[in-house]
């Protein structure tokens, strides 16, 4: 069974025909070639695939594309303004909040929700907000620094 769907992705209207089983990650990566959204697991645990749907962070590997018919989707590609990085991206860069970078798109998308709720998050707020995002490289220390700085920059 296939479905004609349309949604807004990073401010752009897109339409396509997808099967019922097409995941949002597959739609973003394969149909739209937005490969910044990563897939790190098949158990909905790692958070590398995190994007925002209607303003909330979700694991795009655990949503069907057809469920997003009519939705507003924001991916990591939608953050920078040309060459100008989003303040949260800049903070990850400044504070070396990444090593291999595989988890980073998901980390940044989850960090944005942390910052939306609190412009001065504590370590505990960040630990809670990023509980659904795994990093196998950094040991998280620099990610915490980056999220704090990014949240502050976004709040100012």
């Amino acid at each position, binding site marked *: *069974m296939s479905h004609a769907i349309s949604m807004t992705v990073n401010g752009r209207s897109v339409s396509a025909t997808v099967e019922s089983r097409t995941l949002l990650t597959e739609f973003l990566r394969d149909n739209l070639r937005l490969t910044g959204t990563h897939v790190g697991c098949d*158990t909905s645990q790692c*958070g590398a695939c995190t994007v925002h749907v209607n303003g909330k*962070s979700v694991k795009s590997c*655990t949503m069907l594309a057809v469920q997003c018919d009519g939705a507003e989707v924001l991916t990591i590609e939608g953050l920078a303004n040309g060459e100008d990085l989003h303040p949260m991206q800049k903070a990850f860069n400044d504070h070396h909040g990444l090593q291999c970078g595989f988890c980073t798109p998901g980390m940044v998308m*989850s960090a944005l929700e942390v910052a939306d709720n609190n412009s001065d998050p504590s370590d505990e707020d960040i630990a809670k907000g990023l509980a659904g995002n795994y990093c196998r490289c950094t040991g998280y220390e620099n990610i915490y620094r980056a999220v704090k700085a990014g949240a502050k920059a976004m709040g100012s």
Partner: protein
Amino acid sequence: MYNFDYEKAASADDAVKAAGGSDDVMFLAGGMTLIPTLKLRLTQPEKVVDVGGIGDMKGISVSGDTVTIGAATTHADVAGSDDVKKAIPALAKLASLIGDQQVRNRGTIGGSIANADPAADYPAAVVGLGATVKTNKREIAGDDFFTAMFETALEPGELITSVSFPVPEKADYQKLANPASGYAMVGVMVAKTKDGVRVGVTGAGPSAFRASAIEDALGSDFSSDAAKGVTMSSDDLNNDLHATAEYRASCISTLAARAVKAIG
């Protein structure tokens, strides 16, 4: 993932009609359990009926001494609700401890209890607070809802529309989370109500149950020492790589004691 038919229901009636009482049709709410299960090919419905967009099944209302939560209300909405925080703070706390932010943004109370995972959190509240589960055709008492591991009193095609919680005098939820999955190794809801003390336990057994020995002890002496003093039997408790049945039995008393202490 095998393909399936997908239908988005506009109302609870539409959803029930689309499911047609069939075993081969499954409701989809937040998808936080169903989609991973489909990906792993552990289940293979012919059709999935999406109930996540049904407005009437979303939202929280408080009337008198009852909090009613629509089945398609997300964990994040329950955790963040000022009404729930005021009426039953233990329920908002429980919802805030489920999984992670992304899971809480999608997962729903109806999906959680329909799934009846032995390690899920909400079952402790359904049993511990004495909730009533409303479906398209009847009301099911919380005590009768969970029947076995991943089994409930629901019939094929029966749709949960809301869950009502009577407001207790005081309550607290304590959870020992599995450090890897975040699910409850053991979770205990202790509620002091006008009809006595209720203690709902999840994670420890094949399905949520009431710890009547602790209820009795707390009924005569509502103190953390009284809860801690009860030795729970480990018969029929879960025994797996995460914890032995004996360890879980001991955790029930410890967590109940912590809940009593938090209630004060």
